[in-house]
């Protein structure tokens, strides 16, 4: 177990033993993001499709007069699309892409709460038994019988960014 803890991504925990996170559901799984990166939680907004953009960031929304992309994390994890419900929300986060802060919205099925996760309960993503790309996950944190997934948004967005960049040069 100790060994496992050591392998948990340091860029998330940064030497801390506790982490304030916002937890939310996407397609039946519980995710969490560090609370400080969350700008705002919005009700669903009208989306504008961007023809030709990658499906992962296939639309934009009007976030207080700014036009920001809406990302669908489900696609990064190969999950089923779910119908919007009364609980669906958009979480607006600030992430660093290529050295610049970028605002983006993430579509979620339900937002739970801000809570504190303990590093001691964390585990690095297992190397087998998971369909998801391990580098998209910073760590898994046990809570009761469940796991909370802490996605590595940097990796997810950068992967999409890079792929789209190479895609553009081919096209």
């Amino acid at each position, binding site marked *: 177990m100790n060994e496992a803890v050591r392998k948990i991504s340091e860029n998330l925990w940064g030497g801390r033993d506790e982490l304030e996170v916002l937890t939310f559901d996407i397609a039946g799984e519980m995710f969490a993001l560090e609370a400080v990166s969350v700008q705002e939680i919005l009700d669903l907004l009208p989306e504008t499709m*961007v023809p030709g953009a*990658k499906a992962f960031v296939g639309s934009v929304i009007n976030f207080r007069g700014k036009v920001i992309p809406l990302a669908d994390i489900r696609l990064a994890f190969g999950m089923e699309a779910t119908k919007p419900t009364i609980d669906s929300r958009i979480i607006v986060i600030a992430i660093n892409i290529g050295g610049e802060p970028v605002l983006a919205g993430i579509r979620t099925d339900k937002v739970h709460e801000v809570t504190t996760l303990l590093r001691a309960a964390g585990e690095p993503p297992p190397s087998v038994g998971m369909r998801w790309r391990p580098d998209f996950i910073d760590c898994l944190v046990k809570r009761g019988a469940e796991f909370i997934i802490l996605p590595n948004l940097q990796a997810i967005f950068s992967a999409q*960014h890079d792929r*789209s960049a190479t895609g553009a040069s081919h096209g």
Partner: protein
Amino acid sequence: MSFPDPIAVFRTEAAELLEQIEAGLLDLNVNLGDKDQVDAVFRGLHTLKGSGAMFGFDALAAFTHHCETAFDRVRKGEVPATQELVTAVLEAKDHMRALVDTPNGDHEATGEALLANLRAAVDGANSPGAASPAKAAPGRSHFKIRFSLPQNAMANGTNPLPLLDELRELGECKIVANRSAIPSLELLAPTDLYISWEVELLTTQPRSAIDDVFIFVMDEMQLDVVTVEPPLAAGTPGKTETASTEAGPAAAPVAPPAPIAPAPVDAKQKKTAENVRVPAEKLDELMDRVGELVIAQSRLSQLAGGSGDLQLRAVSEDVERLSGELRDTMMVLRMVPVTQLFGRFRRLVHDLAHETGKTIELLTEGETTEVDKSVIERLADPLVHLVRNSCDHGLETPEERRAAGKPEAGHILLSARQQAGEVIITIKDDGRGINKERVRAKAESSGLIAPNANLTDQELYQLIFQPGFSTAQTVTNLSGRGVGMDVVKRTIDALRGTINVTSHVGKGSEISLAIPLTLAIIDGLLVRVGDGRYVIPLSAVEECLELPIEEDMRSRGRSFISLRDSLVPFLRLRDLFRTGTKPDPFQKVVVVSTGSERVGLVVDQIIGDHQTVIKGMSKLHHDVATFSGATILGDGDVALILDVGHLVAEGQQQEAHLRAAG
């Protein structure tokens, strides 16, 4: 919020001063006798020296001092202003810029050389032996001077004592302090100045020398100078001289009544007080807020329009009017006159004339035309290329010009004017014009066009903006490398502008740049394709028409419509954007022009005109070239702005794919 770095502030100020100095010098070059310009340059140099020393730019201060001294002598009439002097100081000015930018760099050698130049220029001009001003003293005149400084002068850093000393240097002097305004001790503020002075001066210097003493405080002070004709000359000079005043100024504060204090504010000062310097990004922020306000307002008016509440409607209308006015004011704030931009070219042309040995006169027109600041900044480079090109390729040498029966001096006209939401900037020369045959030959040999391709003049001229294209036989220091004109094209494209070239062999060429007044707002045509709404820049739109049903039906195989006898290909945006919805029964065509091509864009519905604030696309969408940005509609939805050039390119690619697949 932190205070701005003082060094950075100084640099900004120095850059402005240097610009003023340069403008003054160039004006002076045209009219060497212009005393006002001499004064202006002197003042600029003096201020630069002063604030340079204050901010620790000692090398700059020391160097500037020499130029200032030289100009001081010109100002006093000891040395005439000459072209050599102007040129020397112009070069020195560049050195000053270097000293401002890199104060610790190794500039000494250059500085010395420039100063030697300067000295030579001054001495060369100095033949009439005007060296000592005091000597020829036939008529001494007697002045009565009365002056007072504002009460807060000392707090602002003015020290009256050196002024008195300077007066003394002018000649025999009797100074009396007027202490009547000094209040009783408890009312006395130690930093205030309560004293005014009366001076009797016997001097060989002209009246203007007295004004010069006060040159830097002139705007705030009261100064009366009276010339007294005969008497004192013989009588009193020596003895009264020191019965003066020193008791006063430093320690001598005063009282509230201060009848002298608030000197009349003259027009010039008022004007400077009205200007405020604001960082551009603050304006951008404000612009964003205003944009949001406009959007929020239009949602409000939609709501109000839907409700029967009359009061709500009244308020909504007020808000609409106010936010509209606010937006207009905001746009005006960002506008700056092109004077600043054109100013740089005078120097450029001056230097180019020297380098090429041509005589070139630069004329400018419409400098007061105002353009969005960000546009001005981005226009500078392309204009430099174009002006260089005109000087180097366009204009002939004086001999050639004489042979062609033209005046020896070549003319370049730089003009700006506004025309329906665009600013048109024209560079016109009266040189040899563009040789169409040579352009064609060059284009053919480099494979840009097919041999004997049938091109209009305009298409032919546009070729000079292709990368690597140059018809110059020789590469010079200035141009001819074929780098530059394509940069011009690219920059103007990025500004959503167009370039138009006209030229007559032997008579000259004219290049016009038409550029939208602002990058922040765009006039667009709002259209609907499937469920999505899009904005097409109105500047690209030529006309709208309905797609005839028969064309609609049969356009599986070909996508052309005939428009007044010419074939216009069209793209179905529905297919391009894969909308997957049922097409509207009557499809519309928006004919857009992309440079030389005309293309129809088939849409479901044309909604109408839409003036809109442009929002950049997120970095995550940089791969989507079809859209140049986005905008927020009245109902809060986002509409994407089509980049017509890229859209057409993309359409061509898709069709190529289809052909390959089919």
